[in-house]
């Protein structure tokens, strides 16, 4: 069986993407021919894709399709995995993220990340938000910054009377919104979210989705989800990843199958595999 990776012309995507409110006109990330492997095993192969400014871009696909691997390339979190290797090019505002003189620590200061499982530090709510600003030396008006950030993340009213309490005392949904607030506190350019609602109940999930809608005017958001409805609800554009068996039988890896405006991906996909997946026929 042979499957081919479709060629996607990232230049054209920009044109058909911009929305009437002006979001999406600019490209934040331009990825070309990206391949990620762990200790020699290819996990994701040959991805080309561009991410637009102030868009919410969703990555969907079955388990093992490399979508979480992919999102971790944008803030160089894969660098921390022993044996991980990233080939190809990721341009961030035109600069090569994997260039020789790029400091991954600086990259992560501009590109924030929210993880699958809420991971607040076992410190007070206040200290969680102040953590990033403190290490980045934004020492003035921390009180004010904490308040502004928590309001921004729509968490202020719930926690304003207990800022000194341990963040682990919050509910799971509140913890995750605290983690989003923690990422916002350092004023990033992009926020990466790796299945941010997969461990949460439906009400907390909808709160997170509301928050994503509010944040997209100021931030570029990339979200990995295996909940297709969630992608349909929050994303301007959606990328569908799938698993490809290698022809020589040496295993499998993820590939990008289709990347387009969300409505197009869900209602009129170009690729048969996308259609099977979004209509629930995926084996």
């Amino acid at each position, binding site marked *: 069986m042979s499957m081919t990776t479709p060629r996607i012309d990232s230049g054209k995507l920009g044109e058909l993407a911009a929305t009437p409110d002006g979001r999406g006109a600019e490209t934040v990330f331009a990825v070309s021919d990206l391949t990620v492997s762990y200790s020699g095993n290819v996990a994701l192969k040959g991805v080309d894709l561009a991410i637009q400014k102030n868009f919410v871009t969703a990555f969907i696909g079955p388990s093992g399709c490399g979508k979480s691997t992919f999102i971790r390339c944008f803030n160089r*979190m894969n660098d921390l995995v*022993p044996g991980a290797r990233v080939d190809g090019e990721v341009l961030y505002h035109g600069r090569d993220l994997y260039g020789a003189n790029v400091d991954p620590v600086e990259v992560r*200061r501009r590109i924030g990340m929210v*993880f699958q499982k809420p*991971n607040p530090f076992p*410190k007070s709510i206040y200290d969680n938000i102040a953590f*990033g600003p403190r290490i*980045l030396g934004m020492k003035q008006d921390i009180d004010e910054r904490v308040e502004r950030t928590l309001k921004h993340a729509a968490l202020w009213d719930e926690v304003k009377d207990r800022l000194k309490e341990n963040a682990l005392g919050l509910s799971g949904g509140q913890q995750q919104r605290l983690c989003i607030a923690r*990422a916002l506190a350092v004023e990033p350019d992009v926020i990466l979210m790796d299945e941010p609602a997969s461990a949460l109940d439906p009400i907390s999930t909808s709160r997170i989705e509301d928050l994503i809608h509010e944040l997209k005017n100021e931030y570029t958001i990339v979200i990995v989800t295996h909940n297709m409805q969630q992608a349909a609800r929050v994303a301007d554009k959606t990328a569908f990843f799938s698993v490809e068996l290698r022809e020589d039988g040496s295993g499998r890896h993820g590939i990008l199958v289709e990347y387009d405006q969300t409505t197009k991906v869900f209602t009129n996909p170009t690729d048969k595999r996308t259609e099977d997946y979004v209509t629930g026929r995926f084996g």
Partner: protein
Amino acid sequence: MSTVTPDPLAPAPIDRQGIRLGDVLFKGIAFVAAVGVAAVLGLLTYEVFSLAWPAIQEFGLSFIWTQGWNPNSNVYGALVFIYGTIVTSFIALLLATPLSIAIALFLTEIAPGRVAAPIATMVELLAAIPSVVLGLWGILVFGPWVANHLEPWLQSWFGFLPIFSGDPSQAGILPAALVLTIMIIPITSAICRELFSRVPRDLSDGSLALGSTRWEAIRRVAIPYAAPGISAAVLLGLGRAFGEAIAVTQVIGSGNTINESLFPPGDTLGSRIASSYIGASTAIEAQSLLYLAAILLVISLITNVSAQAIVNRFQKARRMSTG
């Protein structure tokens, strides 16, 4: 009258069928083992105190703060040995704690697996060296090195401090403290390594994703997370240092005075008991040595109980904050 025919498919009656021998045996053995250990501890404490009782009656509590030990003139006091024990253990801890944390961080955060595993094994094997062998090494190799190199060097740089004054000596408080350092590093570093390896990956990833460096993630997330465990590890190391007798006896010399310098010989509670008990010439000397043993026992018990209390209090706090 009606007869009830038993239904062959019905389950067997649930009434008790008699004694289950295995259960009873297991309970009995477990109970005896648990009570036995507690009883040994209690009996041992009682024996030490009752054997020391004549000395306790003779000298009273002032034994603790009396300086001097002279069987000929019947002068017995514990202060020199308590001082020696505390000073050697404190120096050992002061050196071993940062070294252990550094070793643990190197093994868990920095070294790749194939380097970390053999080094970790070697550090732990340090604990397998019999203390008498370590003591011999202390006499033959380490003591001369301290006297010929380390102490002159300390004196040339920090000679203005009274603790580094006087003549260098092969046997003394300082070499004893350094041998103790070597002895407690395996314990404290192994515990610290375990603590750091249990810091959730989520937390350090969260810190790194905010743009912290590796060191900032360690300092602001991993170390605070492990801190209560580290203090318990330090107290356990302290317990070991207090109790160690043989190796200390071999390198501390033997002294009956408290010196402000760390160079001259001294004695700890453990080393004095180990070196003098066999040769005790009078009953009151033997009883005084047992009084020293009682003091050592109390100090060690307090240290270990404190270590447990710290761990318990912290676990309770963590349960409350997550629940």
